């Protein structure tokens, strides 16, 4: 039944009107060591709720990967596990081959709330973590100004964060994260609390910055269109238990316009698919991956595991 569903989706996506040449195709496994390797990660909260089950994702350096799915699909849990703020109860997450243990300066988490230090000015907010990393005052100041200017906040260097608008605060947070030059940027629904107009400005800004720096980004969102605008790859997740439904590659030229016809059509398809997956309930235990994915074969063992340990209600 499940494979059938996957096959149907694959057919739909390939045969879709927007799929001339395929704008959205199942992503293929790439060669080389991935930057971020998520292997058979599972997590449950208090031995009851299965937040993640058998999640496998590879992210390569310079990729922009969006995790999209309904609330409760474990996308934020997965992101926090990547950041090291949470230790998954099963599986392994490694970055550059090194297992993630605790937060580290190589990957920065950007929050939905601006999370600025309210007693510091914009410039001091950007400078503070730079100084903590041992940069000299002059160097930290120079970098702070550079990145404040990158997010178009020139002239607001000495403003306090509560005197800024929501979008401006988010830009300060972005500048603060980028100034630290992390190898990996982990973003937890950073624009969800912004109004539509500001959000689309942020999309343009983030795309421009990403095209400039080509950082590895893992971006969590519940907004399918946002994921399609920003991501090279869109990992579609489903809830109860949190699992990967599809791993899709977005082949639309950048910079992308959220009102682009093809993009709107693709987002409608993905949303339909998500709704259908939710309607049909949980699939049989085991890896939920694209057909033809090499990982499926590896996960056969997991498939045969009894369902007793999956936290079913009494």
């Amino acid at each position, binding site marked *: 039944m499940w494979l059938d569903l996957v096959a149907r989706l694959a057919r739909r996506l390939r045969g879709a009107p927007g799929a001339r040449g395929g704008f959205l195709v199942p992503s293929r496994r790439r060669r080389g060591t991935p930057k971020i390797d998520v292997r058979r990660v599972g997590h449950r909260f208090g031995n009851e709720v299965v937040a993640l089950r058998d999640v496998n994702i590879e992210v390569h350096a310079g990729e922009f990967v969006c995790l999209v799915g309904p609330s409760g699909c474990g996308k934020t849990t997965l992101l926090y596990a990547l*950041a090291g*703020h949470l230790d998954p109860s099963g599986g392994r997450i490694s970055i550059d081959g090194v297992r993630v243990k605790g*937060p*580290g*300066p190589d990957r*920065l*988490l950007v*929050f939905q*709330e601006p*999370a600025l*230090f*309210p*007693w510091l000015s914009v410039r001091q907010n950007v400078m*503070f*973590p730079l100084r*903590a*990393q041992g940069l000299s005052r002059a160097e930290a100041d120079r970098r702070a100004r550079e990145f404040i200017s990158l997010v178009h906040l020139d002239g607001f260097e000495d403003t*306090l*964060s*509560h*005197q800024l608008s929501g979008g401006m605060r988010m830009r300060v947070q972005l500048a*603060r994260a980028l100034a*630290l030059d992390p190898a990996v940027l982990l973003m937890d629904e950073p624009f969800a609390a912004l109004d539509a107009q500001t959000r689309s400005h942020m999309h343009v800004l983030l795309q421009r910055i990403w095209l400039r720096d080509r950082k590895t980004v893992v971006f969590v969102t519940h907004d399918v269109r946002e994921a399609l605008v920003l991501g090279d790859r869109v990992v579609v997740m489903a809830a109860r238990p949190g699992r990967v439904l599809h791993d899709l590659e977005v082949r639309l030229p950048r910079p992308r316009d959220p009102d682009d016809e093809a993009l709107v059509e693709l987002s409608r398809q993905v949303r339909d698919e998500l709704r259908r997956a939710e309607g049909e309930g949980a699939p049989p235990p085991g890896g939920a991956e694209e057909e033809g994915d090499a990982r499926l074969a590896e996960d056969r063992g997991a498939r045969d595991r009894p369902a007793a340990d999956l936290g079913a209600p009494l």
Partner: protein
Amino acid sequence: MLADGRLLHAAARSLGRLAQGYLLSAAIGVPLGVVMARRPGVNAALRPVVLGLQALPSICWLPLAILWFGLSEIAILFVVVMGSLLAIAIATEDAVCGIDPVLLRVAGTLGIRRVRFVAGVLLPAALPGVLTGLKLGWSFAWRALMAGELLFVAGGLGQLLQAGREVLDAAQVMGVMVAIVAIGVLIDRVLFRVLELRVRRRWGLAEAV
């Protein structure tokens, strides 16, 4: 009394003592509060003791202080410290526990740790609450000092009050009482109020006027 400088002299003596005792209890109370908030083990061990002792009026420490330290300045400092330390520690603990968890998480992800974390994130984030505790601690210290000086002959405003009673000079008694109130109001309403308002404004907790 005012003319012959006795009042001024006594007030200076009291304030000097207060400053010593108060600084000491702030220096112990704030770190104690931070540790209690951040270390569950310490909290479990100390919280019942701290809350229990808070119910004890500070002047009740005087007999013990005299037994331990004799009729010395240290005894009266001890009373002042015991009077304000716990209030400061409890308020600091509350303030640190009440810090927005997002700020703590962001500090973690930005790689801010140890001394820089405590001095640069924890204390500033808790400062509005800590300040309230310091204000409360100050008024406790002031009361403890006056009570101590009344019972304990060592100069200062409290003793001047007692001296007024002994020579049946109601005017002196009332004059000293007014002085005690005036100093209390001055520091509480002027110094702390201004400080608190400035911090709250900078932290974005109060509307800038």
